[in-house]
């Protein structure tokens, strides 16, 4: 298992379009991947889970992956967050 911490740095938080990108990225990997705040953790492969996560701008999140490709999975997701989901906002 591998854990990495990231922060939401776009204004709208993890909105529907961003969440869709996270799901698409997560589904590329076999590992189980979870996203969590201090209070709850959700499956990164379920968009509804991601949407119900109370993650606004500045919220610290942990990405947890376990499986054969956990290293690569974490790396891809961290990059997506750092890239502000490719929307530059």
């Amino acid at each position, binding site marked *: 298992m591998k854990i990495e911490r990231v922060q939401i740095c776009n204004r709208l938080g993890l909105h529907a379009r961003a969440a869709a990108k996270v799901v698409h990225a997560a589904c590329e990997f076999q590992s189980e991947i979870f996203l969590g705040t201090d209070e709850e953790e959700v499956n990164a492969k379920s968009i509804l889970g991601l949407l119900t996560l109370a*993650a606004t701008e500045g919220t610290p999140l942990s990405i947890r992956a376990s499986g054969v490709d956990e290293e690569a999975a974490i790396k891809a997701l961290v990059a997506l967050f750092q890239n502000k989901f490719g929307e530059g906002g």
Partner: protein
Amino acid sequence: MSRSQLKGMGVSPGIAIGEPVVHETRPMATLRITVPTSRIDAEVERFRKAVADTVERIRENRERASQQMGQEFAAIFDAHQLIASDASLTGPIEETIRSEQVNAEWALDQVVAHLVARFEALTDVYLSDRKLDVLDVATQIMNALHGLDVRLLENLDRPVVLVADDLPASTVVHLPLDKVLGFALEMGGPTSHTTIIARSLGIPVIVGAHGACQAAQQSRILAFDAFEGKIIFDPDPAEVSEFQSRQREYQEQQGHLFHVRLLPTVTRDGHTIELLANIDLAAELEQAVQWNVDGIGLYRSEFLYMKTSPGLPSEEDHLAEYRALVSRMDGRPVTIRTFDLGGKKLAREVIGSPEANPVLGLRGIRLCLSKPDFFRTQLRAVLRLAAECESGRVKIMFPLISGIEEVRIARLLVRQLSEELRREGHRVPDHVPLGAMVEVPSCAVMAPELAKEVDFLSIGTNDLIQYALAVDRSNELVASYYQPTNPAILQLITRVIAAGEAEGIEISMCGEMAADPLIVPVLVGFGLKKLSMNPQSVPVIRNLIRQLSFRESVHMARQVARMVTARDVEEFLLERLAILLAKARIRV
């Protein structure tokens, strides 16, 4: 005696008699039905089919969106597709169907309600707004389960009177409108897009008919009179014949007006007024031609977007539409207003999150400038069109200008695009008149300065009144504050006209006021020379202007300018109109 009657507000003239068809868009109460054990598998299968259909439809929409607008726009469909097939939605629904032995609709309703409650518990406003996406998808699945009633409407095979709670314009454009005798709506207003479409096609409309859906459901025949706003359910034979004779009378009157179509629009003392058409749809263009307008004063390009929605029209789509327009107008000027999708679903998808106050939000020129790609496509098409026409014939008008900077940016963009087209080897026009719509009060205040920077101004009174008087006319509680005759509005208008005269640029009016028989005489007196209106109003206004004296109108305008309340102005104008009509025996 008829079974029952209702009162509404007639917003498109005419009389309709026919079989009612009810279309309710508001969520129907979902019934809980117990499904026998032997049918449970089939019920789950029915649900899965509805989900698969929904996912497929979203995928189709996504394809079109991504081709025409790029990946960023398509991403919202990605999200919807994922929501529709998310196991944490479909799983609990299938489980509910099996464990409670209920119908799929009920299970869907329960699970979605539970999900929505979770979103509503999130305190952040952006976060709780995410429920909208879930609800949107849930509605699509529900429609798929119901077999989608919109398709039923699209396949109407006989003339009907359409009764609905609310009818979004996106639904109306897909209806076989030749089969619609009239619309009786519970919601909507005089300026809703549905009303505008119906009026343009000569289809009578009554809005604000609360309870019409329920009453129509039990009726075989419905008759309504949009002049009086009266709806009768199951009229008796005497009532039917009364409605029919009024219908004939109206048609004959229309026939009489047809004779004025080739007469010039000139006052008794020789002052000429240009009557232009506001165009929404291709069908309206035919009416404009029929009533012999002097040109197109306002081509609302939104319907082109609605037609291809959720995809966007390409440069060639724009060009083809505009070419048809100018060729049908046969040498007469055409003003194309760039897109204004304020508050619409498309805009919501473009912006990504709903706005708390869309009327004051990203619409008009702001939307155009925030989506340079869309704007570019449209402007390039208009520039290419202008190059094909006689110089100055095709004009570009920017909506919702609130300051001079916006005009400067738009002008710069036009210049850049002309350059770009030239480099690509296209012909470009030497000069395309650029104009601003005066809808925001700040724009009317700045008219003297603005007039130095544009080639023409057009006063859009519907928005100007709404913004200047801070009133939403569709809100019944404040509708009476919407006063076109408010002296403040008249002052804003005269200020714009004076600015136009000082700078020698054309001023026109394209709001509903331009077609209001009460106000037209005073507008003529203020010195307005171009009025743009829905084509149907053209014969009535032409007939009216032909009875006016310009000198008297100027005198009248001076008297009006001294009045300080809307009521005084209105009473004065009513009195003057009554005298005029009595003299001329015009019916308006």
